[in-house]
Each structure stands twice: as structure tokens, then as C-alpha cells.
């Protein structure tokens, strides 16, 4: 009973704080996002009404397109941002460092979310974002669901075969997903073996691919280059992926701009790509 009372008081205090709005320590009410992933995360957390502006690249979910635009993810208009009087600016590692510094000098709270290196870091960042905007509970719920789903998918694929996989995220030069990039988690969680896992850099040689002989090749769309790349791989008839016709094209957006929720969705797709014959 006492615990219940305590909870009631806490809740009441919380309500008061929310009602007061701009009181000290209140969650930010005017947020500007400088990256598509941050925008998506804000929508997932249900903070879209507090998002006042974003970049021209922020096109999903559809509502994000209608928001005020402050430039691209890399080059933004400092003056416009300042004039919108935000109380929180969410930057990414793409943000122009000079502009970021300038905003800080102008007394604006700027928080940077660098590109995550793996799924667990991605979840941590999502939780941090939730905490920052006062949506901790929602963030925890979303992350827990995503983690559970990822774990269950992992368990599902445990008994299945472990195909060798190459995920190509860039052409000219050939650029692949290494261990340092969260795309590696897609492969491993889906029960595959990333042939480029140990590579130091993303730039990879075709010869190495021929030696490692991946059973599956996944290509990110990268505009129109993917079909071309697929044709190039087809020339190597000895590759297992070519023999068994297992070269797939996945949208770049799905692969490289993730929230925990979209990660799990793409992971599901990955599982079905890697184990298409086995999971019935």
C-alpha cells in the first residue's frame, strides 16, 4: 500500500512537471533533428509534435516530409536553426562540425548521436535519446521488444546452416560490411558468416571474394548501381552465390539507416534470404 502511495506521489509530481512545461529540467519542447535516423527515432518515441524542423533527407515516416526544413544532413542553415529557437538540436556524425560548434556558442543545446557500430550500441543510443526527451519508458519498451525479437530470430537460426555471406554497400571501389559496421550484426544474427568480418577496411578486392566464395551476396541498391553490380558478379560462374542464383538486392535505406525497430524488420528479411529453403 505504501509503495502504491509512493508511486502515486511520484506520478503526481511528474504530472505537475509536465503541466508546467518549461520548468527547469522539463523535457525539451522544440527539437530539431539533423538526420533521417534521428527523425525516425523521434517518431517511434511519439515525440513528433515536439519536432519542429528536420533535414530535406528526412522523408520517412510521411509526416516528417511536412516539417520545416533547415538544410541537408551535412550542410545546414545555422541562422534558420537559431531563428526557430530550438531547445534541443540532435546532430549526427555527418553534421558540419563548424556549424555544430557555432550553435553551441549561441547557447543552443546540441547533442550528437554518431553512427552506431553495432546493434547493442544502436539500442543504447535509442535509450539515451528517449531519456533526453523525457520518453524513457517508451524507449525502454521499444528497445526491449526489438531485443527480444532479435534474440528469438537468432535462436531460430541457430540450428540451421551457416552460409558464407558478403554484404556489399558500395561499388567502385567495392565496399563491404566489416565487423566495425552494424551491418555485420544482420549477418551474424541471421545465422550467416560474414566473409569480410576480419577485414580492416571496408574496401575489399574481388579476388578475396573469389577465394572466400560466399554462398550468398547481398547488394545494397545504391541508386541504380546494384543491377550492374549483380551482372558483374554473374560473370564469375564458379562462385557458389552465382551457381545457386543467390545474389539479392536490398534497399540501402533499410540496411544503413536503422532504428532498433527497423533493424529487426530488416533482420527478418535477412533471415528469410539466408535460409529461404530451410525455414518452412
Amino acid at each position, binding site marked *: 500500500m505504501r509503495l502504491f502511495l509512493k508511486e502515486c506521489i511520484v506520478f503526481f509530481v511528474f504530472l505537475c512537471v509536465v503541466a508546467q512545461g518549461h520548468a527547469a529540467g522539463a523535457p525539451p519542447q522544440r527539437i530539431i533533428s539533423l538526420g533521417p535516423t534521428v527523425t525516425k527515432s523521434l517518431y517511434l518515441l511519439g515525440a513528433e509534435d515536439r519536432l519542429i524542423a528536420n533535414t530535406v533527407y528526412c522523408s520517412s515516416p510521411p509526416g516528417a516530409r511536412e516539417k520545416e*526544413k533547415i538544410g541537408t544532413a551535412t550542410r*545546414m*542553415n545555422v*541562422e534558420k536553426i*537559431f531563428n526557430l529557437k530550438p531547445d534541443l538540436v540532435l546532430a549526427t556524425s555527418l553534421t558540419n*562540425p563548424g556549424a555544430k*560548434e557555432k550553435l553551441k556558442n*549561441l547557447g543552443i543545446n546540441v547533442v550528437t548521436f554518431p553512427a552506431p557500430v553495432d546493434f547493442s550500441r544502436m539500442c543504447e543510443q535509442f535509450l539515451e535519446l528517449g531519456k533526453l526527451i523525457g520518453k524513457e519508458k517508451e524507449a525502454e519498451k521499444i528497445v526491449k521488444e526489438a531485443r527480444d525479437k532479435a534474440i528469438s530470430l537468432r535462436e531460430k537460426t541457430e540450428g540451421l546452416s551457416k552460409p558464407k555471406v558478403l554484404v556489399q554497400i558500395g561499388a567502385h571501389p567495392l565496399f563491404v560490411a566489416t565487423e566495425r559496421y552494424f551491418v555485420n550484426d544482420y549477418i551474424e544474427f541471421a545465422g550467416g558468416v560474414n566473409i569480410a568480418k576480419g577485414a580492416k577496411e571496408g574496401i575489399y578486392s574481388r579476388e578475396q571474394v573469389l577465394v572466400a566464395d560466399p554462398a550468398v551476396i547481398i547488394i545494397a541498391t545504391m541508386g541504380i548501381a546494384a543491377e550492374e553490380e549483380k551482372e558483374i558478379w554473374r560473370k564469375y560462374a564458379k562462385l557458389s552465390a552465382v551457381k545457386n542464383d543467390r545474389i539479392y538486392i536490398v534497399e540501402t535505406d533499410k540496411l544503413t539507416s536503422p532504428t532498433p525497430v527497423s533493424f529487426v524488420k530488416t533482420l527478418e528479411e535477412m533471415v528469410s534470404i539466408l535460409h529461404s529453403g530451410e525455414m518452412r
Partner: protein
Amino acid sequence: MTNKIVRWGFWISILCSLLLGVILFALCSGSVRIPVKRIMEVMLGAGSATEYSILFDIRLPRIILAFAIGGALSVSGVILQGVFRNPLVEPYTLGISGGAALGVCLAIVLRLGCIIGVFSLPFFGFLGAGLIIVLVYSLSMKKNTLKVQGLLLTGVMISFVTSSLIMLIMAVSRAEDLHGIVFWIMGSLEEPSWFLIKLAVVVSIFGLFISYLFCVSLNAFSLGEEEALHLGVNVERTKRLLFILASLLTGCSVAITGIIGFVGLVIPHFTRMFAGEDHRILLISSFLCGAGFLIFCDTLARTIISPMELPVGVITGILGGTLFVYTLNKRKSIPGGKWLSK
């Protein structure tokens, strides 16, 4: 003589008023429109705090920096074209920008930024530029004389080497470092530190002042090195000092703003068309012209497809290049043509 002074006075007053006009235009334009009348009111303390901040914390620093960098690059261009007697030389030809870019790339990739914070990139940029200057200079010193043609070729080759090295670094660097490098190479006048802005102003005005001490020597140089020697110019010492001065001006500019092309090449030629070849007027008018040109280009870059911001080099290249070719075709004689015919 008096006729000449009147003509010079006329051009300088025209350029000064143009510069003032461009500055006012730059202060007015942006995503928030502030008319000229309003600027006066804000200056007198009547405007809102936001307007005040936009004018004096966001727009003015950029204008001042553009003024300094535009002026410095133009003066450096005038000096180098004068010393080399070659119309194609510009501040970046000698590998100085390449050296600065290499220094910055290494600083980004090796994470040297954490050592001295905000100033690290300009510092390493300047260090890179300085090392290249010393290298080019010492390679071109033969028997205590500075061979200008050798200097030019060495500079061009070194800039090829540095750009290849930069490509190498970019190829093996991590994605997040790559963005930093690309940002820097594209050049931007968005500089948060007032200290660096003031430094740029001091260096550019200092550069103009020192180079002005050599304006008569530069005039003698335009006749040829031997003729200059006969006219009583200490050719070797002047060449060296002017080369070092131009390098310092370029190195400082590149280190602070990144690579902003075309200003140092086009402005000296453009100024020669109306102000004449005499360095006594050419240096000052190039400084004013370059400053105004860069302020104007930067204003266009930040407003033309607002809210997006273009790299300022895009505008300087397109505007400077077309304007120059147009004016060149209108005139019968080629500026600096006497060098070409030699």
C-alpha cells in the same frame, strides 16, 4: 602624375563603396529577412535579441572572415603572378593548399584533434602548409638563387603528390573521418572561433601592408628579373621574401577556411583589367575586390537554395570563371599578355 592619382583615388573609392554595398547586402540577406533600415535599429539596440544574434553572432563573423580570406588570397595571387610573371599561377598552384589539406587529413584520421580542441584543424593545416613551403623552397634553391620556374614545377608536382596522398588517406579512412575530410576540403566560412577570425583579419591586413612595401619592386619584376636587377632591385632577397609572404597568406587562409578556389586566380586578373598593371594600385584594389567578391559569393552560397547551403567554392568557381571569360572576350588585349608573348 596627378591624373594617375585622381584615377586611382576614383577606383579605390568605387571599390570601397562597392564593398560597403556588398557588406550591407550580406547583412540583410538570409533565411530571416532583415531590411537595411531595421539593421540600423538593431544596431541602436531597438531590435529583438534574436535579430541581434543573427546579425552580429551569425552573419557578421562570416562577413569579416570572407573579407579577410578574400583579401588575403587575392593579394597572394597578385604577388605570385608578379614574381613568376606567369598569368596561370595562383596561391594553390604551389602545393600550399595540398600541404594544408594533407595536414588536416592526417589530423582527422590520426585523431590528433583531441589535443588542442577547436584549433587543431587550423593548426595542423598551417603546419602542413608550412612544411610544403619549406620543402618546395629548399628544393628550388640552387647556389643561393631561387629558380622561379623550378619552383613552379616543383610546386605543381608536390601538389599532385599531396592530392594523391589525400586520396590514399580517404580510401583507407573510416566513414566518419571521411565526412570530416570532405567538409574541410569543400571549404566553408562558417567559423565558430572569434580568435581565428581576428587572426585572419590581422594576417591579411599585415600581408597587404608588407606587400605594399614591395610594390615598386614588383613593378620592376614585370619587366623581367634581369631588368629588375639593373633597376637596382635586390632580386634574390625580394623573391624570397615575397614568396614566403604569399605562402604565409595562403597557408593561413587555407588552414582556417579550407580550400576556396578561384579567388586568388581570377581577382588579380580581373582587377588588372580596370586598375591597370601598376602594383601600387593593383595590390590595394585586388584586396578590396577579392574581399567584396568572396563576401558576395558566400552570401549567394547560403541564400541561393536556402535552407541548404552550397560550398562557397561552387559559387566562386562558376561566377568568377564566367565573369572572367566574359570580360576577357570583351577586351582585345589579354591581361598579363605581355608575359605570354615573351
